[in-house]
């Protein structure tokens, strides 16, 4: 290779970020723009009796107060899976934070003032905020059954029930059955950039700005709602300031678009952090896992019953349930499986995609179950995994993509880095867990590369660069293939009117799918250059090779730029290459498509627990992922360790606390804690396995979610190892750990006993 791929090229666009020059959505200032503010109620579910906007309308500078009555009737609904979410609440709010009206004014202050003056006469209604309450007989229904015609579950709060399985779980003999129910809390993305939206009328169409991960999906949503041709809806999507799945799908873009069209002026809505908490979150779960083992540790069967608590509208969350629960058997060889997973609606803010897409909840349950089994079987947890891990090429899920990596190498490397075989220091424990997540099951990415007359290039790619560094990766691919220095390449992204279609930025797909499209576009340019050189030198194409910035003729090498200059002739011009990368759906597949690749990770930690306070101190944290091939090692490390830190959030501290009216009590940065620089493990390190066995450019696989998957199970296992306490609920707050310690029958491990003795001696 040319030596660009596989090096830690600095982030493209980095200087604009560290100097404050980059303009995120909220930094864009439009002339004549109106500032919007949402009007919400102080409870979750309420019947709206009437809305009086007169006082709000009298505030100087207010140009528009919009309620559902001002929208087309019936009020348009939208959603990536079901068109269930109204632009503004219709007759009833279904979660705390659902807007019933919105104000647009000349200044933010006037909009805020007017929003406070919108008088809503409402009556709070019975509501459900937990899985148990939502599934109880006679529970208030979240969704109007009329929205679900012909659906046998329409009279319940179960949006969908997903069933997967193979073999017969009642047949295989097993020596030990390990069963437990594991819970995972509601947590939120907390991107440091709150969601921002703008819309403006534009001739016979509209322009919509959004910090969105899927600009083309948004374009389609807006076009359908306004009955406009796609060509009349331009979505401008500046790089999101963090997405993590929370910015995949439309939130308030439809609302600001209707407001802008009604006001005849641009309208801008920047959410507060509190409002982003109400705009999206991860589904909480209760997952029962029952696994049968033979005495040698091999898995005989697994049964999983999972309830995911969605919000009042589905967003993409039912797909999260589908895809997450499908992998309930992990990366193991499991002869028989029965998986049932329910999407349960509730009167809570909508849940959506969040790094890991339903898998972290499943991995928490399944890997905690494996760790409990290891203790009961008397088998080392590392050994238990190695005995059951699918080998490369093995169809571990019947009918799906076989294991696409040497996963044992990943596990062994993590064990080696944590010092699994080293003697345990007193008072400490170690834990290990693995996670597997499917890459995309369908996908479509186009890219265009223009090689300009002076040998510089412009690259068009519809991926959203939200911090993962997609721009840098694509630049490196072009630099590699066309021999162009990175600083002579310009990337164009984030504008649906200019950049060719990309399905979406999710499932860690972009290096693989868009990367392949960029690579293909470069290869098309190489073919054209070959033809050009053949014409110039009077030889056949096949006698010419192109690579690394040079054209190799049988007898010599010429720089691409020299061939370009002569080949393009006096008129100049450019050479254009197009690439298209597809992952087709597969009818009949349980997920409608097999995995494009797997993200496989092994996380191992060493921890100490303060028996007096229940506080966990992470001494070491090791995260190893199978990435196929690193295009940019610096960025890979950033993604891997960033995922680990994010995983520590839901493991140790993050959770929504709801009150009896369904309000989030810890709304905002003061009471909802995310990891800070003081919450890091004392020693955090990451590593990779590279066997160039992925479907992406140069053998790359998608990565950046893997490092989050197994954190919770590994940390909880280390706590058990250190103290003997088994905890099946997240987060592992000091209070929860302290309670578990006090309820523990007796120290179950040597380490725990030593610690108890040490504490007793110190008193």
């Amino acid at each position, binding site marked *: 290779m040319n030596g660009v791929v596989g090096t830690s090229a600095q982030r493209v666009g980095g200087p604009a970020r560290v100097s404050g020059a980059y303009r995120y959505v909220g930094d864009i200032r439009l002339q004549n723009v109106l500032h919007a503010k949402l009007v919400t109620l102080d409870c979750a579910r309420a019947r709206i009796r009437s809305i009086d906007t007169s006082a709000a309308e009298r505030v100087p500078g207010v140009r528009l107060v919009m309620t559902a009555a001002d929208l087309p009737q019936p009020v348009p609904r939208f959603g990536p899976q079901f068109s269930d979410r109204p632009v503004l609440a219709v007759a009833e709010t279904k979660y705390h934070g659902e807007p019933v009206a919105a104000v647009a004014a000349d200044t*933010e*202050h006037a909009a805020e003032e007017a929003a406070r003056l919108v008088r809503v006469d409402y009556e709070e209604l019975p509501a459900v905020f937990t899985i148990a309450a939502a599934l109880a007989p006679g529970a208030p229904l979240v969704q109007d059954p009329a929205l679900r015609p012909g659906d046998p579950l329409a009279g319940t709060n179960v949006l969908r029930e997903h069933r997967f399985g193979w073999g017969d779980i009642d047949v295989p003999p097993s020596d030990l059955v390990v069963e437990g129910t594991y819970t995972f809390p509601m947590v939120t993305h907390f*991107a440091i950039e709150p969601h921002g939206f703008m819309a403006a009328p534009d001739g016979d169409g509209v322009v919509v700005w959004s910090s969105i991960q899927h600009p083309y999906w948004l374009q389609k949503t807006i076009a359908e709602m306004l009955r406009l041709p796609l060509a009349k809806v331009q979505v401008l999507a500046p790089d999101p300031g*963090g997405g993590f799945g929370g910015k995949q799908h439309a939130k308030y873009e439809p609302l600001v678009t209707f407001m802008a069209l009604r006001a005849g002026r641009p309208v801008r809505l920047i959410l507060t952090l509190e409002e982003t908490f109400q705009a999206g979150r991860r589904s909480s779960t209760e997952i029962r896992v029952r696994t049968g083992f033979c005495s040698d540790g091999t898995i005989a069967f697994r049964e999983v019953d999972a309830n995911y608590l969605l919000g009042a509208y589905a967003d993409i969350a039912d797909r999260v349930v589908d895809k997450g629960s499908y992998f309930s058997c992990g990366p193991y060889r499991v002869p028989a499986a029965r998986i049932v997973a329910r999407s349960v609606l509730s009167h809570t803010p909508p849940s959506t995609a969040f790094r890991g897409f339903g898998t972290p909840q499943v991995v928490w349950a399944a890997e905690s179950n494996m760790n409990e089994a290891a203790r009961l079987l008397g088998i080392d947890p590392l050994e238990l995994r190695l005995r059951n891990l699918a080998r490369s090429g093995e169809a571990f899920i019947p009918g799906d993509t076989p294991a696409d990596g040497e996963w044992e190498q990943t596990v062994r490397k993590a064990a080696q880095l944590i010092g699994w075989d080293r003697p345990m220091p007193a008072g400490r424990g170690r834990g290990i867990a693995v996670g597997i997540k499917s890459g995309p099951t369908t996908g479509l990415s186009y890219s265009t590369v223009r090689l300009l007359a002076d040998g510089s290039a412009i690259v068009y790619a519809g991926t959203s660069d939200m911090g993962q560094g997609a721009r840098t990766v694509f630049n490196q691919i072009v630099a590699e293939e066309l021999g162009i220095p990175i600083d002579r390449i310009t990337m164009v992204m984030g504008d649906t009117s200019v950049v060719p279609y990309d399905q979406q930025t999710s499932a860690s797909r972009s290096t693989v799918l868009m990367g392949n499209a960029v690579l293909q576009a470069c290869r098309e340019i190489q073919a054209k250059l070959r033809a050009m050189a053949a014409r110039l030198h009077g030889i056949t194409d096949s006698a010419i090779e192109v690579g690394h910035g040079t054209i190799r003729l049988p007898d010599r090498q010429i720089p691409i730029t020299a061939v370009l200059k002569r080949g393009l002739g006096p008129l100049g011009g450019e050479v254009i290459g197009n690439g298209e990368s597809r992952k087709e759906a597969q009818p009949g597949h349980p997920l409608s498509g097999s995995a494009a690749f797997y993200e496989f990770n092994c996380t191992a930690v060493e921890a100490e627990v303060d028996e007096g306070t229940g506080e966990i101190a992470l001494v070491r944290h090791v995260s190893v992922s199978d990435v196929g091939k690193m295009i940019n090692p610096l960025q890979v490390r950033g993604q891997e360790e960033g995922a680990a*830190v994010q995983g520590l959030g839901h493991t140790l501290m993050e959770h929504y606390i709801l009150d009896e009216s369904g309000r989030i009590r810890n709304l905002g940065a003061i009471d909802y804690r995310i990891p800070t620089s003081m919450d890091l493990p004392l020693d955090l390190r990451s590593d990779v396995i590279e066997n160039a066995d992925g479907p992406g450019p140069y053998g790359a696989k998608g990565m950046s979610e893997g490092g989050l998957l197994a954190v919770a199970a590994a940390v909880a296992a280390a706590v058990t190892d250190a103290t003997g306490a088994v905890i099946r609920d997240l987060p592992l707050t000091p209070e929860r750990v302290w309670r578990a310690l006090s309820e523990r029958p007796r120290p179950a491990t040597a380490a725990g006993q030593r610690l108890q003795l040490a504490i007793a001696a110190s008193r």
Partner: protein
Amino acid sequence: MTPVTQTRPIRLTVNRIPRQLDAAPHHTLLSLLRDDLGLTGTKACCLVGECGACTVSLNGRIVDSCLVLAVEADGAEVTTIEGLSTDGQLTRLQQAFLEQGAVQCGYCSPGQVMAARDLLAQIPHPTVGEIREGMVGNLCRCGCYEQITDAVLAAVEAADR
């Protein structure tokens, strides 16, 4: 019931440029910088002084500009992220952020850089522990804390060279 907004003239120096503005009593330094002066490099997130995205230097020490009223900055010297480079060149610290991979989405980066700059002004040779403690007020959801620490250490090393 309609708020009557009384503004007050204030003078301050922002990135070495003297400014004279009318500030409303509820106006924060953050909104003065972003909305009145168009200095959008200073970012808004939590607005309650917890995340550090809006960190700027006020009379030589960092503050969360969302917690400072604009009128409180009357007569002050303010430095924002836009004021760090003098000739369009990144500072050593900013360069170190890029070299160490301490920038992912970049939204918190201006605040992180301002906080790190202040830390190094207080403690020219910080330990890893002092960096972690000194930067605790600046959240990074991409989780680049290790890389940010590396960047601060690298900037110190570059300064010593």
